[in-house]
């Protein structure tokens, strides 16, 4: 349709920028980042930014060295916090997926549970933290309970909707093949819901990190959250930032890890996954024959 003589520019969306272009862009990104850092550093040195509240990049770098190697005090807190995250996430998401499946498969339960789900959805769930601490006391128990609570919801809702949104024609196919309830669940409903469930798990793991922080802010005993709190109280902002950037790195790791897991479990959603598994199954078949 180039008849008009005015060929519109295609949306600048180069499918595969060349290697040299990519290198140049990376250099640009780094350049911009460095400029920002230098601005910040000089701004602080010239007294435009109060270094007490807005630590210099150089100070943050030094604090990284301090908390990780010289004092090496962050390791213990990280260990504590991540242990709690793992425990709470596992328990909360298992509970969420299980209940989601039960509720999704049972219209009657669903109907009567719906108002409570709406109420729960509107409540900032993390706000239950003080209540749980009051009820269960200080310590790991109440922290895990808080993480479980914030982790529960996303897998629950996603499993519920995944299980409910199996295409009707596929259900009909299974019915026409006289599949049992269990077969339908195992071979159709669960695999069909897997991508949605995985998305819920990803949200849950991120929420778990927030959950442990809030629990530690309130309890102020140990863990990365209380460390940030203590550093800030002592106006050691550089170290507080070192802790926060640590969380950024962990958050990024979680993000990438969950993405990998998703590609592995829900392989059929991605082209490379399909090709990989397809080749593997063909090979397995050839070996058998």
């Amino acid at each position, binding site marked *: 349709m180039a008849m008009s003589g005015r060929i519109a520019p295609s949306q600048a969306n180069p499918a595969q920028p060349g290697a040299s272009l990519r290198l140049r862009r990376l250099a640009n990104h780094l350049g911009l980042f460095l400029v920002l850092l230098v601005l910040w550093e000089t701004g602080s040195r010239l007294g435009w930014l109060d270094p007490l509240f807005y630590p210099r990049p150089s100070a943050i770098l030094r604090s990284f060295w301090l908390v990780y190697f010289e004092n090496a005090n962050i390791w213990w807190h990280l260990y504590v916090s991540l242990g709690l995250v793992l425990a709470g996430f596992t328990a909360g998401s298992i509970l969420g997926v299980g209940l989601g499946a039960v509720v999704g498969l049972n219209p009657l339960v669903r109907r009567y549970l719906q108002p409570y789900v709406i109420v729960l959805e509107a409540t900032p769930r993390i706000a239950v933290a003080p209540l749980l601490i009051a009820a269960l006391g200080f310590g790991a128990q109440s922290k895990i309970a808080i993480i479980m609570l914030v982790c529960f919801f996303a897998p629950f809702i996603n499993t519920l909707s995944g299980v409910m949104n199996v295409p009707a024609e596929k259900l*009909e196919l299974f019915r026409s093949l*006289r599949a049992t309830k269990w077969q339908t669940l195992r*071979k159709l409903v669960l695999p*069909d819901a897997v991508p949605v469930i995985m998305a819920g798990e990803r949200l849950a793991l991120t929420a778990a990190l927030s959950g442990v922080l809030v629990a530690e802010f309130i309890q102020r005993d140990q863990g990365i959250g209380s460390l940030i709190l203590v550093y800030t109280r002592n106006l050691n902002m550089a170290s507080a930032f070192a802790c926060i950037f640590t969380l950024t790195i962990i958050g990024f790791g979680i993000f990438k890890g969950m993405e990998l897991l998703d590609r592995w479990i829900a392989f059929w959603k991605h082209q490379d996954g399909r090709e990989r*598994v397809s080749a593997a199954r063909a090979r397995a*078949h050839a070996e058998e024959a």
Partner: protein
Amino acid sequence: MTAAQADAEPRRAAPTVVAGDAIVKTFANGSVTALDRASFDIPKGAFVSLVGPSGCGKSTLLRLIAGLIAPSQGAAIVHGREVTGPRPDIAMMFQKATLLEWRTSLENVLLPTELSGTVTKADRARALDLLNLVGLKDFAFAFPAQLSGGMQQRVALARLLQTGADILLLDEPFGALDEFTREHLNLELLRIVGEFGATTIFVTHNINEAIFLSDQVFVMTPRPGKIAKIVDINLPRPRTLAMQLTPEFNALAEDVRATLGAL
């Protein structure tokens, strides 16, 4: 005429395998009559098409025969017994390929076997043969998302045959495909069901397609959905695309069209 009748004679002698006994189906507490007193006899090995505008109850009739829904009155009778639920001698294929995206073609074809017991080596061999039959030998280990729409329907066809059912119900199976692919698949379908000697009920809203494929065309009209006329198609077999240009074919098409137009 005599030649055609001679051709039709032995088929008429074949025993009835699918019959409708004044089947009525209503929806929404009786306010919608999807199917009004449908009665018919389909002999063994016949190819029957249901043709009519959308909403005239074609899918409803098919699902009643498949035992997926129960009639409000009357009964569908298969092999002399009333249909009360899905059964192993009936298999169904839908407009959407309804393949499971996480299974390869081969695994999709094996699904019916898997649901009714364990999969043996012989089952796998048979599934591969069927994939070969539908022309997908090289795609046995491809996932549905790696196949075109036409190829997906071929997998669905192979899965239909893997059930081993002798009554095949197809609900606009190639309706979403382009004309060329559809014509091609129709020819393949005729060859395959002929080879298997299956009794076939085929839903379409394309008059020419219905006549081309069938021994009998059930012309259905809407509001309320009913079988307005049963047209015998006495064209010789095997059918060729060129037959669509003959006066006999056109006369049959005219007959069907008139029934639909008269409403």
